[in-house]
């Protein structure tokens, strides 16, 4: 049922509200395979909520979310099976404080995917090494710096080689050098065929890594397109305003 044209993730008119507050009103996005989609938008515009809905941590009110063409928001869908295919890095990391870094990373591969301990740990160490954390494998999360915790969360999400990776503000706690490193990792993953959705306030990061940028505003995708277009020649007035404020804040080099 999956043809090359079937997007890995498809959001169809997704609506989500908390009480009276409608956070997502009508969101439609297609995420093709092996591509990176960046969600941008003001704080509180619903980027994290969108990711939580995609990972079935929240029920959506209306619309549908399709993973590889399969409606995962159908009440009959096997939610655990869906989540097994999606990796998530939460904005607040959500590492398990009672486990070492290595145990955090190998928990899902070993318990959910049935990988042997040695194999899981080898892969974990390889990924940790890649992100410059080889020395911290036996440390507990609370004893790591914010940026280190963030990288551990990335490794934990990668360790199960998911079909789709949701990255919520993965560069928020990183210095410019590490942003470059994470950027390289994201690019690498893309070359290896990973499909990713990421939210970010770091526009230069979005511009460099994304194939498609979606600007969320007032519960809809106000503008969507390749980064050159959205950042270089935005059609909507709201997008222009948003970007000019970001430029003023120094988070995006002016065109």
């Amino acid at each position, binding site marked *: 049922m999956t043809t090359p044209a079937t997007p890995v993730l498809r959001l169809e008119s997704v*609506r989500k509200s908390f009480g009276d507050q409608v956070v997502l009103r009508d969101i439609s996005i297609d995420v093709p395979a092996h591509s990176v989609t960046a969600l941008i938008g003001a704080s509180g515009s619903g980027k994290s909520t969108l990711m939580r809905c995609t990972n079935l941590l929240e029920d959506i009110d209306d619309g549908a979310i399709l993973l590889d063409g399969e409606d995962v*928001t159908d009440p009959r869908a096997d*939610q655990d099976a869906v989540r097994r295919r999606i990796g998530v890095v939460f904005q607040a990391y959500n590492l398990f404080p009672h486990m070492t870094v290595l145990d955090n990373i190998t928990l899902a591969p070993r318990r959910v995917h049935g990988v042997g301990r040695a194999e899981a740990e080898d892969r974990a160490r390889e990924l940790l090494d890649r992100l410059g954390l080889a020395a911290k494998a036996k440390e507990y999360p609370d004893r790591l710096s914010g940026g280190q915790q963030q990288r551990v969360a990335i490794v934990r999400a990668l360790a199960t080689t998911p079909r789709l990776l949701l990255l919520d503000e993965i560069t928020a706690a990183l210095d410019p050098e590490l942003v470059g490193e994470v950027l390289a990792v994201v690019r690498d993953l893309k070359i290896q065929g990973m499909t990713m959705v990421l939210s970010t306030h770091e526009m230069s990061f979005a511009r460099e890594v994304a194939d498609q940028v979606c600007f969320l505003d007032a519960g809809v995708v*106000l503008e*969507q397109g390749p980064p050159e277009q959205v950042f270089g020649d935005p*059609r*909507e007035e709201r997008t222009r305003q948003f970007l000019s404020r970001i430029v003023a804040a120094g988070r995006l080099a002016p065109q």
Partner: protein
Amino acid sequence: MTVTDATVSAEEPYRPSARRLAREAYRRQRARRSALIAAVSTGATALVLYLVIVNSPGWAVTRKTFFSLHFARQALPEVLKGLRVNLELMVVCGALILVFGLLLAVARTLRGPVFLPVRLLATAYVDFFLGLPMIICLLIMITGVPALRLTGVTTDPMVLGGAALVLTYSAYVSEVFRAGIQSVHPSQRAAARSLGLSNAQAMRYVVLPQAVRRVVPPLLNNLVSLQKDTGLVSIGGVIDAVYAAKIIAVQSFNYTPYLVAGLVFIVLTVPMTRFTDWITARMNRRQWQGGLV
């Protein structure tokens, strides 16, 4: 992908799609089915239990000795009269225990050399009363204290028994509170102290509110267990609900009064547990992000 015009669609009212309606219909149908399954399986279980009990060989005798309406009617007013003792003890002792237990727990978490004696005393107290069997503590208080013939000290077994309950249960409850205090992440204390709150203020406004909330269920456990242990003061001659039942049972060779007393205690406990469940669920709903998992 079309770019929607936000201002226009903001004005048209939201109408649920056919997809949403179908999903909701499916969920309702499934809920009805689960309710039906639950009802049928509950009914079947009750029926099987009933048949097994009623058809057991000793049922006729058991029914007479445990389920006699006549003795139940005779026992109920006496049991309820005795229940006053249990309730009074529970309310008064319960309040004292909560206060005393909390003080002990906080005393054990105090830091700094100045507080060493306080810490040591509190620890020794808890160790002693955790280990001391309840019944021995009661006997010492109820029979030992009057034997000293101290002037001005009561010999009322109810007061002395209540004191014994407070002594023992404070030790249990302080351990529960201490576990709650220790379960609050150190980062919370760090954040509070960084805002300039003193150690005591951090405890009072940040740590304790979170700790107490977490230990509400085990505290309830202790309170319910206290409610039943209040009956132990009857070893001093006080007539509580269970003792009142015993008096009638011994006279009539019928155990129905015990059953009546047991039911009365259960009826008292159920609203308490439901109430605390409700309170904790409400607090969590307001504070937590929630979600499906």
